[in-house]
C-alpha cells in the first residue's frame, strides 16, 4: 500500500494527466441531451453572454443583406395590395344572365419595383435622384417613384440600361396632381425652389375650405401615381384676392435627405390613359 502511494506520488503529474484525460473523454462520450440541459444552465451564463455580444456584432455586419431581404419582402407585399388591381366590368352581360368574366379575378394596374438610390441632390433648383435600376430591369420613362413609407418622391425622366434618373419633387418643373383629403378637391403640387421641405399646392378652388394640418394626397387623375399616396400636410394658406384659386404651402412627408431605397410604380395602363388624354387635346 505504501508502495502504491509512493508510486502515485512520484508520478503525480502523469496521473493527473490521466485523470484529466479520462474526465474529458467521459464528458465527451456521455454528452447527451440531458447533459446538454445540465451544462446549459451554468455554461450559458458565461458563454451565452459572450455569444450574445458576438451576435450583436455579427448582426451589425449582416445589416446590408438583411436590408436587401426586407426591401424584397416589402415590394412583394406592396404588390399584393388590393388597390393595385382593377375589377372586371361585370355590368356588361352577354345576352344571357351569365357574366362574361369571373368577377373575383382582378386586372393588375400597378406594379412595384425596388431600387437603390445611388445619387441624390436637394440643394439645387433642379434636383435629380439617380437609382441603380434601368431599362433592362423594367424601368420606363414617366414611372412614379415613391419612398418606403409610401410618400411620393418623383418621376423617372431618363433611363439607360442599368441606371435611371428621377426628377425629384424638388424640381422647378415638377408637377404632380394632388388633392386635399378633406374634400377631395384637386390641385397640383409644385416647388418654388426655396426650402427642400416646403412644397406648394396650387390651383385649389376657393370653394375648398382647407385647414392647417390637412393631409394632401395624390389625386386619382395622375397617370403615373396611384391615388391616395401621402404627399404632406398643409402648413399655411395663401389667399390671393386677384385669383379664384388658393395656394397652400405643404410640409413634405418625404424626407429627401436620407433616401436609401425607393419603389418604382409601373402603371400598366399609363399609355392608354395618356393616349386618350392627348387625343382630346387635338380636338380643340
Amino acid at each position, binding site marked *: 500500500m505504501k508502495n502504491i502511494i509512493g508510486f502515485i506520488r512520484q508520478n503525480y503529474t502523469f496521473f493527473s*494527466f490521466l485523470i*484529466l484525460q479520462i474526465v*474529458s473523454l467521459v464528458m*465527451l462520450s456521455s*454528452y447527451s441531451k440531458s447533459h446538454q440541459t445540465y451544462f446549459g444552465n451554468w455554461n450559458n451564463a458565461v458563454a451565452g453572454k459572450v455569444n450574445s455580444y*458576438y451576435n450583436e456584432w455579427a448582426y451589425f455586419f449582416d445589416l446590408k443583406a438583411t436590408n436587401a431581404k426586407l426591401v424584397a419582402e416589402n415590394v412583394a407585399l406592396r404588390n399584393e395590395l388590393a388597390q393595385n388591381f382593377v375589377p372586371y366590368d361585370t355590368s356588361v352581360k352577354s345576352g344571357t344572365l351569365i357574366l362574361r368574366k369571373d368577377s373575383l379575378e382582378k386586372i393588375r394596374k400597378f406594379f412595384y419595383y425596388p431600387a437603390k438610390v445611388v445619387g441624390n441632390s436637394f440643394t439645387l433648383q433642379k434636383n435629380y435622384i439617380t437609382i441603380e435600376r434601368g431599362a433592362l430591369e423594367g424601368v420606363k420613362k414617366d414611372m412614379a417613384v415613391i419612398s418606403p413609407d409610401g410618400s411620393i418622391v418623383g418621376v423617372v425622366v431618363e433611363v439607360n440600361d442599368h441606371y435611371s434618373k428621377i426628377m425629384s419633387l424638388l424640381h422647378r418643373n415638377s408637377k404632380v396632381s394632388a388633392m386635399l383629403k378633406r374634400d377631395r378637391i384637386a390641385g397640383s403640387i409644385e416647388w418654388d425652389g426655396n426650402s427642400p421641405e416646403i412644397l406648394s399646392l396650387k390651383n385649389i378652388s376657393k370653394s375648398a375650405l382647407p385647414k392647417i394640418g390637412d393631409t394632401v394626397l395624390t389625386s386619382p387623375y395622375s397617370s403615373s401615381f396611384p391615388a391616395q399616396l401621402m404627399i404632406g400636410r398643409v402648413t399655411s394658406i395663401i389667399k390671393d384676392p386677384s385669383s379664384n384659386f388658393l395656394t397652400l404651402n405643404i410640409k413634405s412627408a418625404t424626407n429627401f435627405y436620407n433616401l436609401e431605397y425607393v419603389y418604382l410604380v409601373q402603371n400598366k395602363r399609363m399609355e392608354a390613359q395618356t393616349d386618350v388624354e392627348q387625343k382630346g387635346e387635338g380636338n380643340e
Partner: protein
Amino acid sequence: MNNLLKNIARFILFLLIQIIILNEIPPIHQFITPYLYFIFILWLPFGTSRIATTLLGFALGYALDMFTNTPGLHAAAATLIGYLRPTILNLLLAQEASEELTKEPSIATMGWGPFTFYIFSLTFIHHFYLVLLEWLQFGNFSYFIGKVFFTSLMSMLLILLVELLLNRRKLKR
C-alpha cells in the same frame, strides 16, 4: 506578477480570437478549422512545470468547449499537448537553457529550426488527437490524415504569422 497578468490576458485573447473569428470562417470550414487557441500553451515560460501546463491545458480546452458545445473534446487535446510540452522542449533544448526559466519559447530564444519543430510537433499531436476523438466512428483514413495534416499546416501558418506580427523579440529587449 507582470508575467501572470500577461498570460491571463493571452488566455482570454486567444480564446476570443478562436471563438469569434476562427470558428466562424465559412468557406474552408468543413475540411479545415483553423486552430490558434493553444498558442497560449506554447507560449508559457520554459520554467512552467509539467503539472501546471497540463492543468492549464485542461482549463483552456474546457473554456473553449463551453463555447463550441463539445464538453471534453478540446479539453482532452489541450491537456495532451500541455502534458507533452516539457518532453518536447527537453528534446530540443540544451541543458544550459534551464537558467532562462522565465523566458518563453519563441524564434528569438530557440532559433527558427527548433521552434518550428516544436510548434509543428505539438500542433500535429493536438490535431491528430482532436480529429481522432471527433471522427472516431468514421473509417476513411486518407480523409482523416488529410484533414489532420492540412489543419495542422493552417494552424502552423497562423502561429508563425502571429509570431512575426507580434515580434516578441522586442518585448524581451
